[in-house]
């Protein structure tokens, strides 16, 4: 009875992959424990403990200002760029603390790629956008190797057929959806382990959104994906695990199906049924 009532307003089918539950015993790729973040002394998230599974999609949901983007940006230390930002607690990637003393953010960010809310291709050619990462990291210096990486990345991002004839055209001439897929291709060109996505579809139309969601589903066979989204339907469609943030706290984390059908916390229930948020 309760289950039906919850499913109906969402009216989506859940991701068919059962990775979330089947691989429950597998070691977590990223482990956050006791993470606190504050901006200029004002706390943004408090005491977040979260395990993120390898090769699965974890969605972070919650109302605006709940700290989900802040948490995402802690994982690849993009928050370092904000001078007033203070992070405590620990986040590990494959059991290594990303805030450790000997960690080089350049190396860290090669392992953890990021896709942003608004498509942000460099104002250069399509080829240069994808080739930039491998080039600065010295992953390919010879022309043929680089061509191969660019082609492979664009194919994985589902953009190759649309742009293969105009790789030298400026990236800013692509449509919004194509630009976002180009940004995904750029992120995977350096062969990261993890891809962080910060509301990657919020600036896109429904068709472009559907293509990105398909792509995310496809990418999880190779990468660990953490996605922040405002759309509960999207979280339900693409994620295996879902974490609900509220007022800077991680309220609940579980299989996507459980979060959307039978959450254990009242606040989660209220949010997924649409009464708060």
């Amino acid at each position, binding site marked *: 009875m309760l289950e039906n009532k919850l499913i109906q307003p969402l009216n989506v089918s859940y991701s068919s992959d059962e990775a979330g539950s089947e691989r429950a015993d597998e070691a977590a790729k990223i482990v956050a424990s006791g993470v606190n973040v504050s901006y200029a002394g004002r706390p943004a998230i408090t005491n977040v403990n979260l395990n993120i599974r390898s090769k699965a999609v974890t969605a972070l949901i919650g109302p605006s200002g709940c700290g989900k983007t802040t948490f995402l940006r802690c994982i690849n230390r993009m928050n370092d760029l904000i*001078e007033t930002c203070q992070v405590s607690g620990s986040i590990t990637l494959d059991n290594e603390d990303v805030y450790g003393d000997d960690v080089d953010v*350049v190396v860290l960010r*090669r392992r953890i790629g990021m896709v*942003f809310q*608004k498509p942000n291709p460099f104002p250069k050619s399509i080829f240069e956008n994808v080739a930039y*990462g491998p080039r*600065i990291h010295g992953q390919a210096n010879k022309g043929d190797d680089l061509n191969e990486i660019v082609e492979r990345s664009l194919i994985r991002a589902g953009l190759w057929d649309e742009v293969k004839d105009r790789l030298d055209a400026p990236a800013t001439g692509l449509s919004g959806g194509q630009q976002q897929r180009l940004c995904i291709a*750029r*992120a995977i060109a350096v062969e990261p382990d993890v891809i962080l996505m910060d509301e990657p579809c919020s600036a896109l139309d429904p068709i472009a959104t559907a293509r990105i969601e398909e792509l995310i589903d496809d990418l999880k066979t190779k990468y660990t994906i953490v996605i922040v989204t405002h759309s509960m339907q999207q979280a339900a469609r693409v994620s295996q695990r879902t974490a609900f943030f509220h007022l800077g706290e991680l309220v609940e984390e579980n299989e996507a199906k459980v979060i959307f059908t039978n959450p254990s916390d009242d606040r989660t229930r209220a949010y997924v049924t649409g009464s708060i948020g």
Partner: protein
Amino acid sequence: MTERKSPGSLSSSAMPGVVERHRGEERFKFLGLAAILVSLSFLAFFLVSIIGTGYGAFLQTALKVEVDLTYDSLGLVEPATEEDIANIRYRSIVRSAMRDIITEDVGRREARTLYGMLGAAAEFDLRDIVVEQPQLIGTVASLWLTSSDDVDLYNKGDASEASQLQTRLSEKQQEWYATLEAQGRIKTRFNWTFLTSSDSRDPEVAGVYGAMIGSFFALGVCLLLSCVVGVLAAVYLEEFAARNRWTQFLEININNLAAVPSITFGLLGLAIFLGFFGLPRSASLVGGMVLALMTLPTVIISSRVALQAVAPSIREAAFGIGASRVQAVFHHVVPLAMPGILTGVILGMARALGETAPLLMIGMIAFIADPPSTLTQPASALPVQVYLWADSPERGFAEKTAGAILVLLVFLLLMNLMAVILRRKFEK
């Protein structure tokens, strides 16, 4: 059936105050247009008066005389060596040529005023022609030689009473002028001397070439220094420096320096470059360094604004893919800020080109008759040349002053044009 014409419910009178609001709009449009017209008319007045006075500087009056260059009269033996040519007494040749034309008997005093119609420039003209064409020696050559500045002004001035009265030619000279004109011995030609010679005490041989070279050297030094130092400082402050009291203090000081009167930078240059480092006085190197001090704040401020205007998403994209700070800045941010940085640099250069006060303090005000060939030789600069000529008592310098201003304006126009072209190119 007559219908009473009353305003509809959507007309302006249907709502109180609307008519007055529209009237306010009209008033503002009128005032704005008037302001633009006033400034345009000032500009037009300025251009008309400068061009009207200055175009004369690009023209000069030449007199045709038959010059006796036969070996007998020169007292030389064939063939003439280079040394012979250098030793020819050109002044007396020019004088006797004048006497040949005006055949009437003239006394000693009158003869001097006759020779005065061909000034120092005529001797230099003749020497240059003979050095260039030595085959003329042994012949009687009919040559056009530059007249003195008084004759030049008399020729260029309109024939109205006022200018006749103002002329410095004596009545006798005016008579001779009429004779020469009747014989077709007077013409107006383009004044290449103005663009190829340097400063002189005689207006008819004075030119802007030396000042142009001096300005060019000084601007080159200034461009190099302010570009390198200014852009590096801006990039560091904007992209690398932490935001704290110390950088705020720096920022306030840079903003204040941009508003400091330029003569102050001249005093600073005098104290540091000449007094402390002992660099040569009047040198374009020091001039360029002083101008660089003056333009640095402008370049830093405009470069920082250009860097700030680059979308933060580009920085995030670069950092997100693992670029280091230097890579993010120099691969992505600086190229995107380039049009703005260049505009700032070129506008700073344009200001430096027109600046006089700081150059006066380091001795670039001196009378310098030779164009500099190195950075450390004494040099003049275009705006200083304008200042010097404006101060000269000879009437011939009045049009030279306006002419030099025209040259300066053309350079400014070219630099601004370059700024536009470069910006277009980088924005692509």
